[in-house]
């Protein structure tokens, strides 16, 4: 069957951005590896195909930004195009854009900082940050979950991990907010983004200089140690500082907003969590990650000709693996479109798989568990204070533009 006959090829169509599950779910059933000519992309939606691709990193390069020449989409103001190259150069130096052997050397520097045991030690800090934010809004009776909980929480944690002085928190928050424009559609978006990228370089440079000679236990010291060992150059240290600020922010924001929205729309699951917030937090967070994942899809470039699911992906062609679709593959998950916080096992692909498996996965889990637990312990119920949820026009991220909620006093 021709997919064109039944489905749009516009991946930014309003209905695809609003509900990627119906669209990519249909693609998965028709053709789990599908060619989209309009965007010059292979779209991989089947669970098994996706796992196979992620575990064969030598066949699929992560150096996407360096190699993809396409102009920004949605389009940007023409006068801002020079900024695009500057931002590309910054992002192309990030750890996530490297292939082996460099990726292994660089990941080896930072990997130990993020082990499950090391991240578990952050739980008390995360819990108190959640408590502080929730105590601050409780009496109000309403909040925008995005701006009052989901965005500030991860920035507080990242600031602590970076070891930035308390009085610099607002400055860091402003930079973190600027980097979020990576994921937006506004034609002017490269300007706040470029400001944030330059701001990080300016802000982190003296911190790195200090830590090169006098390292502490913070994350910037870990990167500086990598420079001392000759794995990173200075530019890479600064770029990866920025990566932590973005990767740990956008994704956690989405986990919190998408998860709470799922609970609001599935009140029986909310009651299930409320009956045992501490006991259910772990499985509930995994189901939030599966059901409406923070990252919908990620890109790779074929490093050689690869045959998969009867299709041939040619060397140099781009592919997007859609974990939002694979997470609902009925071959792996029963009742995949049902939000079931008791689901176990739950082998979702929201953190990817293989050598690029999300470095911050355990931290994200701890944050999600503490947020959902904290919400369920303090609030009897939430209702949406809007009848329309809008999403950023992004293929990569599943990000609400706002999430206004209210609760009974």
């Amino acid at each position, binding site marked *: 069957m021709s997919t064109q006959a039944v489905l749009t090829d516009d991946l930014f169509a309003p209905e695809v951005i609003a509900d990627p599950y119906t669209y990519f779910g249909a693609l998965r059933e028709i053709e789990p590896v599908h060619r989209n000519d309009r965007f010059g992309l292979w779209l991989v939606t089947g669970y098994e195909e996706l796992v196979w691709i992620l*575990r064969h990193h030598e066949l699929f390069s992560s150096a996407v930004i360096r190699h993809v020449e396409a102009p920004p989409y949605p389009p940007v103001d023409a006068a801002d195009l020079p900024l695009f190259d500057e931002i590309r150069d910054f992002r192309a130096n990030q750890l996530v854009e490297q292939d082996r052997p460099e990726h292994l050397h660089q990941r080896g520097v930072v990997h130990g900082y993020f082990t499950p045991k090391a991240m578990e030690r952050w739980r008390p800090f995360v819990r108190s940050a959640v408590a502080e934010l929730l105590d601050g809004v409780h009496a109000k009776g309403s909040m925008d979950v995005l701006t009052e909980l989901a965005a500030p929480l991860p920035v507080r944690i990242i600031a602590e991990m970076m070891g930035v002085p308390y009085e610099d928190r607002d400055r860091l928050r402003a930079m973190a907010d600027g980097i979020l424009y990576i994921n937006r559609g506004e034609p002017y978006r490269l300007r706040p983004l470029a400001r944030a990228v330059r701001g990080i370089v300016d802000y982190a440079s003296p911190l790195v200089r200090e830590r090169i000679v006098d390292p502490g236990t913070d994350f910037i010291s870990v990167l500086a140690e990598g420079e001392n060992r000759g794995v990173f150059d200075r530019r890479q240290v600064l770029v990866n500082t920025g990566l932590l600020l973005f990767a740990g922010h956008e994704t956690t924001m989405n986990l919190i907003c998408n998860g709470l929205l799922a609970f609001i729309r599935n009140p029986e699951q909310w009651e299930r969590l409320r009956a045992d917030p501490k006991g259910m937090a772990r499985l509930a967070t995994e189901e939030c990650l599966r059901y409406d994942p923070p990252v919908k899809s990620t890109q790779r470039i074929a490093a050689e000709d690869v045959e998969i699911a009867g299709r041939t992906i040619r060397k140099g062609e781009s592919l997007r693996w859609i974990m939002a679709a694979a997470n609902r593959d009925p071959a792996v998950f029963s009742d995949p479109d049902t939000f079931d916080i008791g689901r176990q096992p739950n082998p979702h692909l929201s953190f990817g*798989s293989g050598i690029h498996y999300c470095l911050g996965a355990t931290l994200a889990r701890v944050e999600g568990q503490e947020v959902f637990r904290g919400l369920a312990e303090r609030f009897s119920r939430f209702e949406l204070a809007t009848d329309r949820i809008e999403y950023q026009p992004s293929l990569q991220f599943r990000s609400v533009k706002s999430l206004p909620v209210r609760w009974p006093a």
Partner: protein
Amino acid sequence: MTKPPRRVPAALDIYVDHDRCVGNAMCLTLAPGVFAHNARRQSEVVDPEGDAIADIIVAAENCPTAAILLSDAATGEPYEV
């Protein structure tokens, strides 16, 4: 609460939980004599004595999904990393 120092076992039983293993392959770098990929590119124990005990423990600690479970080969007691 500070825990008393633990004795490191003289020999380890090593188990890789394939429900958790995501093929991150850090164990193949840290203890290459012990771990190798299977056909699904999940980690498998090919030789439990292929590396020093200290390296096996580091490999288990660095598993991002805590999929490598260790126990004392003599007593069967779990050795938590």
